[in-house]
């Protein structure tokens, strides 16, 4: 329990301080784009659009919305939402090859919402909310029901200004099978003040975004402090979009990239409504070996930040400055590698923390869910909070839960388990596990596959059933000391999760979803069964009817006795022929 408190404390102890230069009372919009070359040679582009509404939706009735989307504002007021986090993801962030993500999201759709303590029936609000969001984002969020909703006790904490700790106000659900496409992107873009007409959002062309290895879009709404003493509260809408371009397949093995090559257009202007519009390019690594690559157009603005315990250098382009654009009024940031090519990249170094998950065993009766958690930190141990949500049709055997590190049993310091109820709610398993330095921890639990009712199978039952990714929340001690005061301006890099102090940083990782086959009947079987049953019934009934209606006559050898006389007497009374 102590560990849970520790994570919890780390999460919300540091209340978000939205420092901003603008005077309070006027809504603010900022747009940022971060381009990060990844270890594998791919490139990640992270867009972040932040809209701030300087009015408290909880207390006053807001009727005038300037740049904050009205549809979301009304939603917050109507359902008394404290915080809302929604993400749609296609593909999987490969931590091992790409390094730690700025903000990871599970494959498919994820929604988690904190309600205000004024809400009486949380389940009802949750159900209605997911249906409305389903309509807003053209997604199948309406499939969120009690069978895939859980209430985690320790893994998810409010990220904004909050004074609630009662986890009964939290609802969490994932839909691992949700497929993300343009119909989800368009409504997401419409929430932006400039739409996709101007600014960085004009780069978001669907045909390029979906021609990538990974695509994730998210919406985060939370209350933040308007000023330093937190006397009044603003609402922040953060729309983030991460896309990873596979430079190997599109660039024929060359690692050179440019904005035009990635998005098939260049930046021509910033959004006029934006108070801040910037492009950052991660140029770390060039420090050690000089002039590995060349950035074009060159920029003089550079910024050093510590992200995920690692000191990084970012080149900065300010789109609000006219000088940033070329003579033809566009900006096409390009990076050219000099000399050495991708060949020299070698094996990517493994990140400090990552996890993978798989199902083991064969056959359709039972199996084991295994999660391998890697702590590659050279000398520090740290705890990880693991959240597993398993659908009811996999019956977990909790007594088989084993956690082993380096061949020895590892006892979790906190376990919260809620068993599933058939057709009603999923299994929920939360554990706080201490990871020794430089170790692999294997968590395995056996399950049995249930046989569904034949109407419960989806149209493609042999595809298998998805198990949502497990969530790992971890506070990683950083290798280098970071100074907190640098973080205030560079909002993009610090992401949503505040860091408690300089010595560690918070990260939430998701494992891959699992695909499990359930025993599937042959669906032409009902027909066979009907044929067979009819035959059996016909034959059986016929014979029994025959036996029951036939008059049996016992050949009388000795001439009967008292019993027969009595029987005949009764038969005569009944009017049937005597024996």
């Amino acid at each position, binding site marked *: 329990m102590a560990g849970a408190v520790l994570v919890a404390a780390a999460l919300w102890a540091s209340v978000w301080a939205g420092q901003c230069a603008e005077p309070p009372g006027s809504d603010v919009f900022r747009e940022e784009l971060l381009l990060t070359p990844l270890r594998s040679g791919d490139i990640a582009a992270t867009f972040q659009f932040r809209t701030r509404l300087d009015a408290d939706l909880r207390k006053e009735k807001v009727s005038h919305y300037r740049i904050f989307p009205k549809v979301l504002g009304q939603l917050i007021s109507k359902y008394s939402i404290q915080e809302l986090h929604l993400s749609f993801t*296609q*593909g*999987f962030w*490969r931590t*091992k*090859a790409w390094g730690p993500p700025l903000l990871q999201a599970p*494959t498919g759709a994820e929604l988690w919402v904190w309600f205000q303590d004024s809400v009486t029936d949380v389940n009802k609000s949750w159900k209605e909310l997911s249906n409305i969001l389903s309509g807003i984002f053209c997604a199948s969020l309406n499939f969120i029901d009690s069978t895939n909703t859980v209430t985690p006790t320790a893994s998810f904490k409010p990220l904004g200004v909050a004074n609630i700790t009662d986890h009964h106000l939290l609802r969490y659900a994932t839909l*691992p099978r949700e497929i993300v496409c343009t119909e989800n992107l368009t409504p997401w873009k419409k929430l932006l003040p400039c739409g996709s007409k101007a600014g960085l959002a004009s780069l978001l062309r669907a045909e390029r975004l979906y*021609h*990538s*290895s*990974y695509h994730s879009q998210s919406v985060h709404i939370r209350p933040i402090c308007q000023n330093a003493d937190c006397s009044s509260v603003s609402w922040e809408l953060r729309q983030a979009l991460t896309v990873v371009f*596979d430079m*190997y*397949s599109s660039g*024929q093995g060359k690692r050179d990239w440019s904005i035009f090559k990635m998005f098939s257009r260049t930046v021509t202007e910033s959004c006029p409504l934006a108070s801040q519009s910037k492009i950052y390019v991660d140029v770390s690594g060039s420090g050690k070996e000089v002039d590995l690559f060349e950035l074009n157009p060159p920029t003089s603005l550079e910024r050093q930040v510590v992200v995920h315990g690692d000191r990084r250098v970012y080149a900065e382009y300010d789109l609000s400055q006219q000088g940033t654009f070329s003579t033809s009024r566009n900006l096409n940031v390009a990076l050219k590698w000099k000399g050495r090519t991708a*060949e020299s990249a*070698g*094996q990517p170094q493994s990140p400090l923390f990552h996890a*993978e998950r*798989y*199902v*083991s*065993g*064969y*056959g*359709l009766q039972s199996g*084991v869910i*295994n999660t*391998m958690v890697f702590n590659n930190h050279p000398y520090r141990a740290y705890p990880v909070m693991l959240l597993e949500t398993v659908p009811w049709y996999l019956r977990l055997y909790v007594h088989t839960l084993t956690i082993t590190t380096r061949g020895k049993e590892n006892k979790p310091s906190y376990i919260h388990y809620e068993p599933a109820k058939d057709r009603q709610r999923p299994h929920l398993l939360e554990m706080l596990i201490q990871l020794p330095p430089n170790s*692999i921890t294997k968590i395995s639990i056996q399950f049995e596959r249930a046989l569904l009712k034949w109407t419960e199978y989806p149209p*493609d*039952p*042999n*595809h*298998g059933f*998805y198990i949502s990714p497990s969530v790992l929340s971890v506070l990683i001690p950083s290798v280098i000391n970071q100074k907190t005061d640098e973080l205030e301006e560079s909002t993009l890099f610090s992401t949503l999760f505040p860091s408690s102090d300089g010595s560690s940083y918070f990260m939430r990782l998701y494992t*891959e*979803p*699992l*695909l*499990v*086959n359930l025993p*599937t009947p042959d669906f032409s079987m009902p027909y066979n069964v009907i044929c067979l049953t009819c035959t059996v019934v016909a034959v059986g009934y*016929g*014979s*029994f009817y*025959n*036996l029951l209606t*036939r008059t049996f006559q016992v050949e009388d050898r000795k001439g009967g006795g008292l019993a027969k006389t009595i029987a005949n007497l009764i038969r005569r009374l009944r009017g049937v022929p005597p024996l």
Partner: protein
Amino acid sequence: MGLLSDPNRRQALSRVVTQLNTPLCIISYLVGTMWFLGLAFQPFTLRSYISENSMGSTMVEEQFVSGERGLSYAREFAAHKKSAGGSPVAWLERTMRGLGLEVYSQSFVRTLPFPDETTERFMVKGTNVYGILRAPRAASTESLVLSVPCSEGQNNNQAVGLLLALASYFRGQIYWAKDIIFLVNEHDLIGMEAWLEGYHDVNVTEIKSSVMLGRAGAIQAAVSLEMSSDVITSFDLVVEGLNGQLPNLDLVNLFYAFCQKNTLLCTIQGKLQRTDFDTFPGYLHSLQTMLIMMLKQGSGRPQGDHGLFLRYHIEAITLRGINSFRQYKYDMNTVGKTLEGMFRKLNNLSERLHQSYFFYLLPCLSRFVSIGIYMPAIGFFILILILRSLDLWIKLRRSDGTAEDGVMDTEQDPRPGILSLATPIVICHATGLSLYYLPVMSQEMATDHFPVSESEAVVLTAIAIYVAGLALPHNTHRVLSGAGSDQGWMTLKLISLLYLAVLLGCISLINFSLGFLLAVTIVPVAAIVQPTGPRALYALLLVLITPATTLLGSIFLYRELIEYPVSLLECWQLFLQAIAGGMLDHYLYGSLLFPFIAFFVYPCWLQLWNVVFWK
């Protein structure tokens, strides 16, 4: 029931069963045999078709053109393999990483229960190397496997080259929805078993392997490729897997469809399809093809690396590139295009392959015999056993009935005691158990006392125990009193026949070929044996149909069918190898044939032997 409830009709029925028993049995045997022979006759077979909608047509524009690159990879691989003296792990890892794959390796060690003489190995150490191509559109929930065994000598170098060329080409494509695993497994089947057990994190056999780190979700289908020349004339398709399991027919059809699209010659069991299927030679040809398939399937041995996938419910086939003396040769590009087409079609799968048949026989590639059509053949054989046991049952009841009345002959034998029946059954099964356990357990003792190698010791001990089992009935009968009645042997035979019927019924559902081979030999003799009449003839017949003799005959027949006949002495050598091989298959891959024969078929046969020598 109406028939049975009427005593008169029941008597008539039992009269039919007893009096017409022999003709009925003969007719049944003939019908069963004719039915079986008819299976290969073209008008009776079904034309194969792809049932899976998502693989419906071959409408894929294959663009693979890096066949030359594959050959240069192959040469490089051959050089590195030679210098490394095994799988060139480091080179493979480097090359695959250079292609943009996620590369992992898995090392394994397997100590065989006794040395394998044919391949000369006892302790097998190796490393499997595999690279995963991560699909951009999915979260590693599903995957496909392309595997190539890294064999000794110059074998399969070209297959590895093609695998690398395909990996490089596939890496540049964006349409993958399933991860693709490119696997180079060392030591053929042992390496494959190690990899599969590692991937599924189970330990079925006693293989030891390193912890596997890279995974790619549930494997949907696998193709194993073997090719040892730069050009090929035809592709041979191998389907028979462990314990006679077969891949879904759709996978076979998919391959056949792409062969037709690329006008590639494809064979099955090394036999090309004939066009004159309506003539007698054409019929004989397809019968031959089907018989070879049945002999291979009946052996329960995986005929290619794909065979081990089937246990994990992964549909898999092996493709063997053949370079014979035909005029027209196909280069790497055509082969690569065929594989590309197949993988792109498999990539489209939304569900596991399940639409088509899992139980079938292939008289040729374009036609198949489904389970519904071939099962009656064995049904007729089992009918013989049932008819015979009905006959025995009625006879037993009749003698019971007369004995109870006490009117007829008082010198009728007393009913056999439970002890006199249970003893031979228990002894037969105990012999079966010792046949299973003793050979491997006592190999050390045998090598100490006799000048034989371990594997010879195992095989010879097995044969010795097998033969020693024949001597048992003479010994047991002396001890037991009151066992030598007519009722005694009839009851024992009744039990044996029913036992045999159940055994054959069960095994033919799992492995039709094995069931059929056993049934066609054992059933007629089992039906006629009895302790009266020409006992020497019965004993001879029983020896001729014992599972061991069936194995010998099958080897002989197989070599005849593949047109590579052997002399009797060679056949004996092969027979000894097959016994050792069968036992190794059981210990290495979990093949069920050896325990099935030792625990069930052989004891059942011994019971019949007991019947013949009943005194």
